[in-house]
């Protein structure tokens, strides 16, 4: 199985720059996701690879072969679309056979291959059904089988699960991953769902405004965001604007408060930084009265609770702004709204990102967490 290389892809639609010199190498057999907000250029990148769109600049290589000028119908790429892409006048089996029919394979051979693939995607019993007789999830399985039937060099998927309900989505994404691993096929997967990208990919590419923000394994993307954008986009993150303090044990200062951060030891004091702190690394303890327990990093008052299943996300109002803290749901019962709490964290946990000099309110108050970020990551 060959790998896939995108070299300096640039694409503009009139005034809108959809891709800004995008470089990406997908290793042979690797599952790479393009992740980013709506309009960041994910689909455009995929369509250029498939040959439906032409880049203004840049090249596409499969293995060592430059396919930039190869027409879409001779690229041998399997593509799975968002929805409604099955040919309505053909049964599931005929849909899967279509690519082979075009390649003039003998019908017995085609039928054998089609049933093999429908079996692989768990639809052996639906061969004779027409698309309108299949559920959304089943249709996407057929679409996957159809794309795989031509033994493509690369598998391209453009939000193949976004039209399905949550449960089917989780089940099917794991199946796509299983099949991809089993066949060892190189895959490029587009999604705007970070959970989806992080759970199935070997590597994730975070895009914003047609540019790569960060490329890395799911653990790197989640645990070590390199840019303010990635920090804000992936999962829920407390973002605190601070200044590095000259402190041998490592600390930053925000709104006159000292916050322990080991990472600060390697930074020049006085530097303007953004401190990143995941809700799950903060430890929350109820305080008796107004007294401080001593040793905590911050105190504050509970503002609200959001039940997320195993954990409850607690919003705490502190002098450095509101902080999100994940508390095991069983313990959350004991911290009522308005209660005074102490917050502690392992100084090794927070990460720092340098902010441009003079940048004010890059992220607003300490943490602005939108409603839609309140999802278990």
């Amino acid at each position, binding site marked *: 199985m060959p790998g896939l290389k995108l070299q300096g892809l640039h694409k503009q639609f009139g005034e809108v720059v959809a891709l800004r010199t995008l470089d990406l190498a997908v290793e042979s057999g690797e599952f790479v996701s393009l992740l980013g907000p709506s309009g960041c250029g994910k689909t455009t990148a995929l369509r250029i690879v*498939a*040959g*439906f769109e032409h880049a203004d600049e840049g090249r596409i290589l499969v293995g060592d072969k430059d396919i930039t000028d190869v027409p*879409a*119908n*001779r*690229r*041998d*790429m*399997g*593509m799975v*679309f*968002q*929805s*409604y*892409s*099955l*040919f*309505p*006048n*053909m049964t599931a089996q005929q849909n899967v056979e*279509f*690519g082979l*029919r*075009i*390649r003039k394979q003998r019908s017995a051979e085609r039928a054998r291959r089609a049933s093999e693939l429908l079996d692989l995607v768990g639809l052996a019993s639906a061969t004779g059904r*027409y*698309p*309108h007789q299949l559920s959304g999830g089943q249709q996407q399985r057929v*679409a996957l089988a*159809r*794309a795989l039937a*031509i033994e493509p060099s690369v598998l391209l998927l453009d939000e193949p699960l976004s039209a399905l309900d949550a449960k089917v989505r989780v089940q099917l994404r794991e199946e796509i991953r299983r099949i991809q691993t089993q066949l060892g096929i190189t895959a490029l997967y587009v999604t705007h769902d970070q959970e989806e990208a992080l759970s199935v990919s070997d590597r994730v590419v975070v895009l914003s405004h047609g540019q790569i923000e960060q490329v890395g394994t799911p653990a790197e993307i989640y645990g070590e965001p390199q840019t303010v954008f990635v920090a804000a986009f992936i999962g829920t993150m407390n973002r605190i604007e601070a200044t590095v303090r000259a402190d041998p044990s490592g600390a930053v200062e925000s709104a006159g408060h000292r916050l322990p951060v080991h990472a600060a030891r390697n930074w020049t004091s006085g530097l303007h930084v953004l401190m990143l702190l995941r809700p799950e690394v903060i430890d929350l303890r109820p305080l008796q009265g107004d007294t401080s327990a001593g040793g905590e990093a911050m105190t504050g008052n509970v503002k609200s609770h959001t039940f997320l299943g195993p954990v409850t996300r607690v919003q705490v109002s502190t002098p450095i702004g509101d902080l999100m803290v994940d508390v095991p749901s069983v313990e959350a019962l004991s911290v009522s709204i308005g209660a005074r709490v102490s917050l502690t964290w392992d100084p090794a946990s927070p990460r720092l990102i340098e902010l441009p000099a003079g940048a004010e309110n890059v992220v607003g108050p300490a943490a602005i967490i939108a409603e839609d970020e309140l999802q278990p990551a």
Partner: protein
Amino acid sequence: MADTTRDITTLPMSRPRGILVAKRGSLAWLGVVPFFLYTTLFLLLPALWLTTDAFRSPTGGYTFSFIQKLFQSQYENAFFTSIRISLVTALVGGIFGLFVAYAALREDVPRWVRPLLTTYSGVAANFAGVPLAFAFVATLGGAGLVTQFLARFGLDIYARGFSLYTFTGLTITYVYFQLPLMILIIIPSLEGIKREWREAATNLGATHTQFWRHIGLPILFPSLLGAMVLLFGNAFSAYATPYALTSGSVNLVPILIGNVTSGEVVADPNLGDALALGTIVIISISVVIYALLQRRSDKWLRR
């Protein structure tokens, strides 16, 4: 549309689905009452009345003489000519209309083309009868603008045997409203061909032609067929256009009906009824052919 839409309004473009599945006790069926009332009053009853009159002797009693008359050469000939002009203009208008609509919907065509085309088609499809006849006389008649213009360049089309007042001339005139009618009714069906189908086919290796052969045309087939039946009926029932243009020199069924019912030549209303009955039979046959061919697509159409 042309002069009369009486017969064609009821042609099936696609089968009505789900009308009869209203739950018991629901009053949804009330909504279709006006429709059935209308078709009963203005389609079924007149047809019934016309049918009985076609067999009724003016002197009382029943007779087959009018029906038999239809097989006399003059009347038989009129049916053949009407069928021929309807078929030819349905095919020519239909095929060219399909291509024009297809071309206008392509992604690389500027956006303003489409509304312009549909507006024009809406007007042109309804431009028929006496005004249309005059428009053609003024352009392609013996002293018409285009005729004169061509003559100036040494191409005297009338000297070469062309005449607007013949079958050929009439065909050209009919295509003038058949083509835009086709455009109007086929655009929605063409829009129903999803971009994903085209791209999926391309992705799987299909050429443009292969896409249309295996996917595009099979999907479009029922609508194309329905549109053709509509165009056929539209041409068959045209009256004012051929009347104004040829003053009866081309022998067509609607003109004969006009003649025998208005009494300009000889008033023979029962013969008119028989001719109209013949028309109903022809249109019914075309609908049956449509239904038979359309069954092929039935199995994958959503019900």
